[in-house]
């Protein structure tokens, strides 16, 4: 925990101790009949006498600054806030804000995928009474987020943007392959190119002879294992074998092109999930209640830059003063 650094504040006592005069001989009063008394060692006592107050002040400030930099203090300064995910419908946003009664609140545009995580990291910046509303197409997080304050989440699913996948087909059974790709639903669309180009992401090699060595693509589908030498040592997964070669990754199966709808869906889904990621799932609208979860140890670092500048300036002034004093 960064705030444990505040316990280092007693370090400030060190310059204070160094700056006081350590020992001063006690004044001796004249006493005429002192000769009848036993001699003693000159008594010395510690006296608090300050020297170089300016330098002492600077050094204390320097240490305090360093400790503050390490402790990374956060001051709650954000009031009511509406976090709006990018690309959210403006009218819907206004409506939701009005419904929540947060017309005066600050609006904070954030990326949809980072909004909840950002709130978790910057939670200490919000005033205790501040209300938080998150709007937009927020993807469902893997675990239920825990905040130390109530957070209201209103989501509106937006259609995912269309993604084109360029495919080149070398096959005598090209119509069958085209039918397979045409069956692909969702935002991923397949564009079948006549010849492979740099944008090609998948090459379907359904010919008995080996492909030219210069032809490269991230993924190859082949029905003839003999055409790719790397498939000799490949691993099998069901009826399919896969291997990484100099041309790219190769998936091979003699059962292709799939003959029934289930096999075709399984192949396409596997391809989409492994190469294009799962389709984001919009989280349902809900209200997160405040929990007693500990604050994130990862602090916001809002003051770090300022403190670093102050530290550098104080250090420079301290060095200059010390040098000038020695002269």
């Amino acid at each position, binding site marked *: 925990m960064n705030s444990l650094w505040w316990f280092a504040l007693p370090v400030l006592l060190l310059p204070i101790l160094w700056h006081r005069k350590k020992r001063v001989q006690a004044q001796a009063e004249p006493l005429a009949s002192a000769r*009848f008394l036993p001699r003693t060692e000159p008594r010395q006592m510690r006296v608090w006498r300050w020297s170089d107050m300016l330098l002492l002040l600077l050094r204390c400030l320097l240490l305090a600054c360093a400790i503050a930099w390490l402790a990374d203090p956060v001051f709650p300064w954000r009031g009511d806030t509406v976090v709006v995910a990018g690309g959210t419908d403006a009218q819907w946003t206004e409506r939701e804000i009005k419904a929540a009664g947060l017309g005066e609140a600050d609006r904070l545009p954030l990326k949809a995928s980072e909004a909840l995580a950002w709130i978790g990291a910057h939670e200490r910046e919000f005033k205790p009474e501040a209300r938080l509303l998150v709007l937009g197409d927020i993807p469902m997080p893997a675990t239920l987020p825990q905040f130390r304050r109530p957070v209201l989440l209103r989501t509106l699913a937006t259609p995912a943007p269309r993604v084109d996948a360029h495919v080149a087909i070398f096959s005598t059974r090209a119509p069958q392959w085209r039918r397979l790709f045409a069956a692909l639903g969702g935002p991923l669309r397949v564009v079948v190119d006549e010849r492979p180009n740099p944008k090609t992401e998948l090459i379907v090699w359904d010919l008995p002879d080996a492909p030219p060595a210069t032809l490269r693509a991230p993924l190859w589908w082949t029905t003839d294992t003999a055409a790719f030498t790397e498939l000799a040592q490949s691993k099998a997964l069901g009826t399919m074998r896969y291997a990484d070669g100099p041309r790219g990754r190769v998936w091979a199966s003699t059962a292709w092109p799939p003959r029934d709808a289930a096999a075709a869906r399984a192949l396409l889904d596997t391809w989409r999930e492994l190469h294009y990621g799962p389709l984001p799932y919009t989280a349902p609208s809900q209200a997160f209640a405040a929990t007693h979860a500990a604050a994130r140890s990862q602090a916001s670092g809002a003051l770090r830059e300022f403190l670093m500048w102050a530290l550098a300036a104080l250090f420079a002034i301290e060095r200059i003063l010390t040098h000038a004093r020695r002269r």
Partner: protein
Amino acid sequence: MAQVSSALLAHTTNLELVIRHVLAGLGQGVHAGRERGSGVEFSEYRAYAPGDEWRRVDWKLLARADRYYVREAERDSHVAVWLLLDASASMAEPSRSVPGLDKLAYARTLLACIGAIAQRQGDAFGLAVLANGRVQLVPAARGPRQLQRVLAKLQSVQAAGALPDADVLRSGLRFTQSPSLIFAATDFLDWPSPLSEALIRLRHMRHDVRAACLQTEAECTGGFDAGPAYRDPERDAAVFRFGADLRAGYLRNREQHFDTVTAHLRAHDVPLVHVQIEQAPGEVLRNWLRQGGRR
């Protein structure tokens, strides 16, 4: 007449005022003079000087000449009175109970009173101040002006330095021509010392030596503050400590020292009075003057 207390001494630096008050209840003289009063045998007229007693002014002559003249008598006394003041640094020891009073001020008062008495009796009197390793001498003379001189000298004395050494004392204290009465005020903390030797030598030269040993009440009872460190004003820079545990040892050492002093002086027939500066000076003065008569 109320006694002048030592506390009052601390309040004034005007020695004449103090003398007047101390001597008010102290009519008798220093010694039995051969001729009483201010002399019986007329010698000469002298112009009046401030400090002359009004009763010695010749009023008939004033009426005739419209000027003040004083009748000078033939030779009042044959005895010279010498005032010996130890003004070494240790005499600056203050009284720990009476603020503003120290040994030197007390000694100064005692000697000034004796000087005034001597002047009233018509005796010649002189002053020797021992300070800073030197002897400062005011030669013996008579009359009110001499008293002024002596008082001015006493007034200006500051306690400083150590006592002069034996050679300086021997050459400085050369008043052997006539029998003298020597009043020495010192603290006798150094013993034996050049001063003690000088006093005994003077006694052997048949002078009447009377010593007063000045101490403070705190010195006699060991009533010092245990808080601060102490140093000897006349010796090296050693530091001393006082505390309740050291009082018995202190008193034993001190008693031993002053027993030696007293025994030594008695052996040489020098009367010694122990004076606490917190005592009333009139009383002390009476004791001191009376002591010589008892011998």
